[in-house]
């Protein structure tokens, strides 16, 4: 077989392999940071158009999981594919522009002042695009409009409140018009109105066919939207299916979150906040 023919066949096979590939596929994903195995043998496939919530207690590995999915934390063993491309070995061919990521963050500021528009525009870049064109400007304004901050586009994010900064970071992911949106605790520290606005935005994206993976502590405003929950404990998936009901007592309106470690001795093992029926 001559060179070009062979190249054609290889390209065709690659296309056949990646076409219809799920947005996210993790197989035996293990992440070891220092000496601790943060994730242990995670198998997870997220199909097109799904809205998946990732739940679990603090330290269960939720953030590490999403970070390893988007290539921020290196995979120790196993593999992660986005749209059929391995994030470790095929970094250059992963369709990064289809992925929007909102990191868990308390601030959107850095050492030098930057406007909301500048921060959001940086979300337009990817492995092939190092500059922002004229159209990018309009798209960035549009994304800020979606999170209700269009009128503050030219203000420095340094003067924004925590919740407003969180919304800037969400706009930075939305500006990519992603097919897969990954959000790490987007509801933390923002007021009810903003939560509801975010829920509306995500609902609209979901209706338009966007795949959503969202790390949450509780379903809250996003509850009606979530059709599948993945629960982590100690770096393993302990539940993958319809939303589990809250752990006994937590659904009682009179239930008060008293935690025994306040002033007392620390508990060895936390009861999970969610009951899981396997």
């Amino acid at each position, binding site marked *: 077989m001559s060179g070009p023919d062979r190249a054609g066949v290889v390209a065709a096979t690659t296309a056949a392999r990646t076409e219809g590939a799920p947005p996210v596929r993790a197989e035996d994903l293990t992440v070891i940071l220092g000496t601790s195995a943060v994730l242990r043998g995670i198998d997870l496939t997220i199909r097109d158009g799904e809205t998946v919530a990732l739940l679990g207690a603090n330290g269960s590995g939720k953030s590490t999981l999403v970070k390893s999915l988007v290539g921020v934390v290196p995979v120790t063993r196993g593999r992660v594919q986005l749209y059929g491309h391995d994030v470790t070995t095929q970094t250059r061919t992963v369709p990064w522009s289809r992925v929007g990521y909102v990191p868990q963050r308390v601030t959107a500021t850095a050492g030098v002042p930057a406007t909301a528009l500048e921060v959001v525009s940086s979300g337009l870049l990817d*492995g092939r695009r190092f500059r922002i064109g004229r159209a990018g400007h309009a798209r960035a304004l549009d994304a800020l409009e979606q999170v209700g901050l269009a009128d503050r586009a030219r203000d420095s994010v340094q003067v924004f409140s925590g919740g407003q900064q969180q919304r800037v*970071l969400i706009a930075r992911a939305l500006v990519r018009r992603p097919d897969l949106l990954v959000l790490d605790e987007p509801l933390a520290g923002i007021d009810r109105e903003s939560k509801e606005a975010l829920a509306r935005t995500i609902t609209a994206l979901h209706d338009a066919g966007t795949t959503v993976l969202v790390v949450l502590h509780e379903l809250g405003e996003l509850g009606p939207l979530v059709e599948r929950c993945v629960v982590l404990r100690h770096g393993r998936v302990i539940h993958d299916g319809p939303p589990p009901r809250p752990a006994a007592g937590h659904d009682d309106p009179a239930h008060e979150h008293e935690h025994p470690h306040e002033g007392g001795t620390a508990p060895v093992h936390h009861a999970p906040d969610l009951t899981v029926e396997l």
Partner: protein
Amino acid sequence: MDLLTTLGELLATPLMQRALVVAVLVGVAAPVMGTYLVQRRLALLGDGIGHVALTGVAMGWLAGSAAGLTDRDVLAVPGAVVASIAGAVLIEVVRERGKTSGDVALALLFYGGIAGGVLLIGLAGGTTANLNGYLFGSIAAVSTLDVWLTVVLAAVLLGFGLGLRPALFALCHDEEFARATGLPVRALNILLAVMAALTVSVSMRVVGVLLVSALMIVPVAVAQLLARSFRSTMTTAMVIGAVVSVTGLTITYLHPLSPGATIVVLAIGLYAVVSIVRPLFGRPAHRDPHLDVDDDVEVREGV
């Protein structure tokens, strides 16, 4: 003799012409690098690299003596370039591995650089006094070759620094996010480190380590007080860098002062003046920044 005649004389002196060209170029280009360094909170990187560059100078001297060169300064600048690039890339690797935070990695570079320099100079049979020329520069003795080197350096810095601004902004603003967008984070990090190293090592003999690392940072510190956006911070810093360089150099033509020190003191003086005067002008300080949104709790007013 009035001031205008003096300034005319200044511009007519070839030595001063060369010094002015170098001062403007370094004054404009250094803050471009500095804006990225301040953005990622590595403001002292230039100084850290400067210390390693001194070790490089000493290495150049050692190599020169070993090779039996008559002018042992020949290998000093190449030595500085090699050592500072190696140091800057090393700091990047240490940072990326996450073993040590950026500022601690900087400290290691700092102390290692100065100690290495002193040790190696001793071995080369020199004294630390020989290093003074590199610490404080000799902008009053700029050769034509120095001018051309600076022109090339400034062109490279401005080309990369302005041309890749969106990508470098994304990197310095939020490295984790930049990684998730698919930007070649490692390559950009190395590029930034190498550019910082080149800035310091190429211009150290002319303007000195002190001046070049100060010109990277102090104009940015002033610009920050005035600007709201990253872009305008960088532009303002470039203008400030050029203005203080030329002003400082002109002052030292009229009075026998150290050019490097004069320029740095001017820049810092400007910072002090702007930070005092700035609140008196500009937008009203007590504009209500709060959005009109509903409270999350019900509050009965007037109870």
